[in-house]
């Protein structure tokens, strides 16, 4: 089973929930798909055993064969390849690696060469299997790297995905194919606004979900009323405590800092199993 942990708004406690949930499940794998700002490793401190550079394929022009016909640039919608006089220029940062240019080049003058956009690291720590991706600084496109992290998924028995914040392509790529999604939010106007957006995303993707309300005693009750109105199950509420915030700041998972949370996260896992089971039958 794949459980994704996501949040429209950043900093609501996604990583806290993903890490703690993973730590109370036996035989589990944690994939940190927030490749722009991966943080789970701070709490897991994994020993990395495998490192793999992740490339996308970009065109390389054989000037000898190129006749400057311009077919490549006419099929590239990203303006990543241009013919100027007798020179064909490639702008690798704009290239999405779709492969159209090399396919259509009538002279066979385009070869595809790998360009690294980031790294995937795999290993283990605190008794769980761990994989994350690190996007290279200055790279714009994270989805290919997220897909590379997700190729490590071994569905058996449980995979937890720590997703990036937001509602666009990186999030979609991360949570696609999940059996359940936990949306972490906080009861503030920002939290609620972004929760509503995430709910739309999940409904569109037809992934069953529930909410965890972090720092539930700050802000107002509107998030709770919204969940009730929309029949979104509230799976867990975590109050604001300085000891939790302080443990977080030092990279200590909440289940370790406040032991009673082990039980609470086990309950969270049980609720997810129950809801996911209901969804299947």
């Amino acid at each position, binding site marked *: 089973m794949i459980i994704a942990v996501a949040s429209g708004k950043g900093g609501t406690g996604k990583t806290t929930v993903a890490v703690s949930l993973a730590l109370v499940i036996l035989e589990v794998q944690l994939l940190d798909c927030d490749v722009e700002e991966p943080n789970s490793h701070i709490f897991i401190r994994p020993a990395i055993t495998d490192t793999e550079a992740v490339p996308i394929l970009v065109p390389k022009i054989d000037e000898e064969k190129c006749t400057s016909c311009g077919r490549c640039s006419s099929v590239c919608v990203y303006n990543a390849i241009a013919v100027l006089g007798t020179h064909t220029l490639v702008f690798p940062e704009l290239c999405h690696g*779709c492969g159209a240019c090399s396919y259509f080049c009538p002279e066979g003058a385009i070869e595809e060469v790998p360009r690294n956009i980031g790294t995937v690291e795999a290993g283990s720590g605190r008794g769980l299997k761990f994989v994350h991706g690190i996007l290279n600084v200055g790279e714009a496109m994270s989805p290919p790297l997220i897909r590379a992290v997700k190729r490590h998924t071994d569905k058996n028995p449980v995979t937890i995905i720590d997703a990036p914040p937001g509602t666009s392509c990186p999030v979609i790529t991360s949570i696609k194919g999940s059996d359940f999604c936990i949306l972490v939010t906080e009861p503030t106007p920002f939290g609620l606004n972004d929760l509503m957006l995430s709910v739309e995303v999940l409904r569109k993707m037809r992934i069953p979900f529930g909410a965890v309300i972090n720092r539930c005693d700050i802000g107002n009750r509107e998030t709770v009323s919204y969940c009730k109105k929309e029949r979104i199950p509230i799976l867990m509420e975590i109050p604001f405590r300085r000891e939790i915030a302080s443990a977080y700041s030092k990279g200590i998972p909440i289940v370790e800092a406040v032991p009673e949370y082990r039980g609470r996260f086990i309950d969270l896992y049980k609720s997810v199993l129950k809801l996911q089971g209901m969804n299947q039958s």
Partner: protein
Amino acid sequence: MKELLVISGKGGTGKTVVTGAFASLAENTVIVDCDVDAADLHLLLSPTVKEAHLFKSGLQPVIDEERCTRCGTCRTVCRFDAVTPKLSISHIDCEGCGFCANACPEQAIEMIENVSGEWYISETRYGPFVHAKLGIAEENSGKLVTLVKQQARSVAEESGSDLILIDGSPGIGCPVIASLAGVDCAVVVTEPTISGLHDAGRVIEVAKHFDVPVKVVVNKFDLNEEMTQKTEEYCRNNGIAVLGKIPFCESVVRATVEGKTVVEYDHGEAKPAIVKIWKTLEEELGV
């Protein structure tokens, strides 16, 4: 005219709260929300929309079932797994590259303009506000950010503004890179946690990569003074100025709940800290 961008790397460090506060302190400013993915600044500024426009993000394939002979070429060439085994397009996966349309031997695929969001020019109590809403599960947030910034520039020129104040998005990917283009200064709002410093470090690297000068604000600094010191040390070692530190203060959430900026909400110690930071920034930017 100067452009100031507020970013954070990590989400939830208080980026929008700080931008909102700056908006109420700055004079003659155009305010911009470039966090098009999960925009929140409007909740503090309660804008009155003056103009709304559709955002056309690019092209999307549509298969003409009449012409399609089910040869499956589109599925073979697509590198994004966006053509399903039943040969329909999964728009969530499609990158709009058009490879399928060009490769289809029957010319059965047409690329049509996709509307994936809206952008607005609004009026607020602190001046003009340019913002946007990306549709659910849509792509091309970078392109929308670029568009919003261009619009903000023309609004600023028309109104003779001194400053464009931009709320950025979390992360280091395409919307952040698009928001960094051409700004005079990026303020990185961080928090004193290991994650906060780790993420701030990465976004600072990105800003440097694009030659944008960076300054740092440590929010909720008293939640872990040791990490605050480490953050300051990091900045010192990397030649980055720390503009100031904001204490953790419950009034920040209360102000947000009331739809006010911290500056308008007259309680707590966060306000004087932010006012001081703004003064320093104003002087350094020369606005």
